[in-house]
């Protein structure tokens, strides 16, 4: 079984026992229950709310549990213009999120400063925290956010943290 297809399971021949790799199982669980930290700072937050509502329904991808506490969040969705006045608050909330954590820069402003080439606006949240997925648009439609979320899920499915730890352990021993 590969990392990419942890679901290849035949109940007739395998019964209640599933053989897989720990990495694959953990990645599968993580990627399908991403709890977002909604960092809504401007108009992108409206689209983020639309993505969470009935029509687009982000819960189809397991990411409907918007946590307003960073300590319970997995993915920070930076939705909107990050002013310098807000920048260190965003950083602080990011630092309070437990590992593993991911970041989606939603929209032009969060990705690059957007049209605000200004003395007051941080030119992209990636100058402060590491970003996994950038979503273009001003603001992006909810479909674009869902697409970004699926890209992030794909990225998480390819992670191999346990395998790396095991390798490091063997090398240490």
């Amino acid at each position, binding site marked *: 079984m590969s990392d990419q297809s942890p679901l290849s399971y035949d109940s007739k021949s395998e019964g209640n026992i599933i053989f897989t790799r720990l990495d694959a199982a953990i990645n599968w669980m993580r990627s399908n229950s991403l709890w977002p930290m909604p960092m809504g700072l401007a108009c992108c937050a409206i689209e983020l709310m639309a993505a969470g509502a009935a029509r687009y329904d982000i819960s189809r991808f397991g990411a409907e549990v918007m946590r307003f506490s960073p300590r319970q969040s997995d993915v920070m969705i930076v939705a909107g213009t990050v002013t*310098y006045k807000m920048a260190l608050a965003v950083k602080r909330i990011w630092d309070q999120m437990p590992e593993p954590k991911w970041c989606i820069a939603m929209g032009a402003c969060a990705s690059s400063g957007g049209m*605000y*080439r200004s*003395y007051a606006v941080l030119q992209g949240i990636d*100058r402060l925290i590491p970003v996994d997925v950038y979503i273009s648009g001003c603001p992006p439609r909810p479909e674009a956010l869902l697409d970004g979320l699926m890209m992030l899920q794909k990225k998480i499915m390819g992670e191999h943290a346990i395998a790396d730890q095991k390798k490091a352990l063997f090398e240490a021993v």
Partner: protein
Amino acid sequence: MTAADAAASLSGKFPAAITAEKEFRGERTLVLRADSLHDVCAFAKESLGFDYLIDISSVDHFGAEPRFEVVYELYSMNDGAHLRLKIPVSEDDCEAATVSDIWPTANWHEREVFDLMGIRFQGHPDLRRILMWEGYPYHPLRKDFPLGGRPSDVPGLAFSETAPLAGGPFVTVPTDGTTQVREPRARHAGETPGPAKFPDEP
């Protein structure tokens, strides 16, 4: 009472205070001596019925003396009259009298003018920055402040960097030309705008 009546009444009451009076497209503007502003405003509110201060703004006539101008927009709810008052503020003292004891709304308007233009209002009860953060060393709407900003750092609170402008499509280029030349939409496609010229801040 119309704005013209109010202006006549003010110039009768404060003949030494008013240095110029203008009318443009039905809008009346009085230019005052800075030290008489508070008395004129108090009289305008108490006796002439200007009970609503629409806005306070400021203008930077960079290179001219006096450099700044503070503009007060007065409105009378009962009469529908609109009167504009202007006072000159020189760069050396950068001070004006507060009117926040006359119109409470002036409190935040004056904080905004202080934050972005650096004019201090004497007698203001709480003159703090309102948009930029405490400790930010510049006043960003001054003409000698570059559009892209300047780097600054207040540890633990906020930092700022210079934004990359690179003659982008939304950037007005300072030249000696007319407004048409400076206007970004007037440039033809592929035309490179001239280098940005900003005087250094002392």
